[in-house]
């Protein structure tokens, strides 16, 4: 089944390559957002299956966005990402209502699939 995914990161370069590689692996990339407010707006409008959410967003932090999404759209699977390793953010991501955390270095279609399925 093709999953609809929203990619949230303040680096356009990362959004571009993540979008390209996930689309190549069969994901339906339905939107991109560069900050927390735009992410919340896009998620409510698009209602994707998955939100790939960077922790370190300018303004409203990724942690806050995850909490908001969990409250407003509990069916959306949020996966948090960062250049940092899971030791720093793993528990914090779960506590914020996300399905899990991935280091950007470990980001792949399979790893994402595994977290969404969990």
């Amino acid at each position, binding site marked *: 089944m093709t999953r609809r995914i929203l990619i949230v990161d303040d680096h356009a370069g990362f959004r571009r390559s993540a979008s390209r590689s996930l689309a190549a692996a069969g994901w339906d990339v339905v939107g991109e957002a560069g900050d927390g407010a735009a992410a919340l707006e896009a998620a409510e409008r698009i209602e994707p299956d998955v939100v790939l959410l960077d*922790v370190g967003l300018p303004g409203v932090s990724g*942690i806050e966005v995850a909490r908001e999404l969990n409250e407003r759209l509990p069916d959306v699977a949020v996966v948090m990402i960062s*250049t*940092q390793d899971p*030791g*720093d*953010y793993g528990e*914090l991501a779960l506590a914020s209502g996300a399905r899990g955390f991935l280091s950007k*270095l470990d980001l792949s279609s399979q790893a994402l699939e595994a977290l969404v399925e969990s």
Partner: protein
Amino acid sequence: MAVRIEQTVARAVSSATDVGDAYTRALEAIGTDLEWNLAAAWEPNADGETLGCASLWSRDDDADEFAAVTRTTTFAPGEGLPGAVWESDQAVWVADAATDPRLPRQEAARAAGLHSAVGFPVRSERGVVGVIEGFADRKLEPDQELLNTLEVVGAQLGQLIERRRAEETGVAVERRHRATLEAAIDCVITMDHNGDVLEFNPAAETTFGYTSEEAVGREMATLIVPEELRDRHRRGLRRYLDNDEPVLLDRRIEIEAVRRDGSRFPVELTITRIDVPGAAVFTGHLRDITDRLEAERELRESRTRLVEAADEARRRIERDLHDGAQQQLISVAMTLEAASRQIEESPSEARALLDEAAAELRQATVELRELARGIHPAVLTEGGLDPALRGLASRSKVATTIAAVPERRFPMPVEAAAYFVVAEGLTNVARHADGASSAEVEVAEADGSLVVEVSDDGTGGATLDGSGLRGLSDRVAALGGELEVTSPAGGGTRLRAVIPCGS
């Protein structure tokens, strides 16, 4: 009659113990002499706008009710008998107090059987300072001679009372002055125009090592001024007395002073001339500022170390970026260029080069991540101490447990200091603590401070000397906190920081 009453009043006042007693004795003397039934003295209340009863005498208890009313009544200028005297500054005669509608105490007077009344001012150089009134149970004809006599008695009584009051005030002032000197934290030394000590308070005794008995009468310069400064001190005093030239007066200066044992120490000194008639008297307030100067020096050094540490950190980051990520990125660029050249001729070779470039980039990313975390951990900003410390524990080379961390957020500098205490502590456990198999981190809030502890089960013997801990100690001290290391030989090491939370 006038002379007799004046003498009686003078005797009465001179045997009094205080001003209140002087009034009572004067009232009794006058009342007895003139065969009054009751007499009262009035003085201005603290507001200065009304008179209150300062003292009351009565011959017997027939007029108890009237006495009670008198004690609790106040009079404005012009009001009642006391107010009329106060306003007019003259003796006043009332033919019958029981029927005179001007008197607010008319009814009470009637009930007590009081009739004729007289009031006269108590005068001093300051003007009317009080009023005396007397009541008799008879109706008497106005007696101008008696009124004249009473005005003279009032003037005499006023002087006597003012003198007693001045004496009492003088004694009280002297007592207050003495108590202030005794309790002063500063050394207070009073000196006459010759430069000889007049007073030497307990703080001065403790500070300089002389008793007051030893110091008083000796030249202040030889007691406490360093030898090479004595002549200047004497010349300055002479110059001031001869020409009124204010040398050091009323300024706060820092100089050296000498103790009895010859040791020197820095003091802050203010000299003031005391405003007394006659020869000049000076008072000097001295404070030992050894501790303050020492604290200032320590603060300066600590600031310098913080600045140096920040500079050193920047140099290290530059080196790490230059030697690490930058070199790796150049290498990646070259690998990609090689791949590009091979792509037509040998696609499999190109693919191998691309894989190599991707691997190199990943390695560069990991190194950048570590570098960024060392500057300031993003997780601390995003999530606070709890996730940040758990991250540190998970990466520690020694098994580390987090015993407790408060969930709430603290000001950023406090969180950062606590984080780096734990980071440095765990680094040291891994690097130095021989035989340490585990470490424990505990952070708790107590008495407005964050208490951070990192302990291990190694062999101990660590000190605060390492430059890492020195810098950490400065960072904690900059927030008003303290860092200590407890490390008995064979007993493990405990690094403990107490950091005021500021909220």
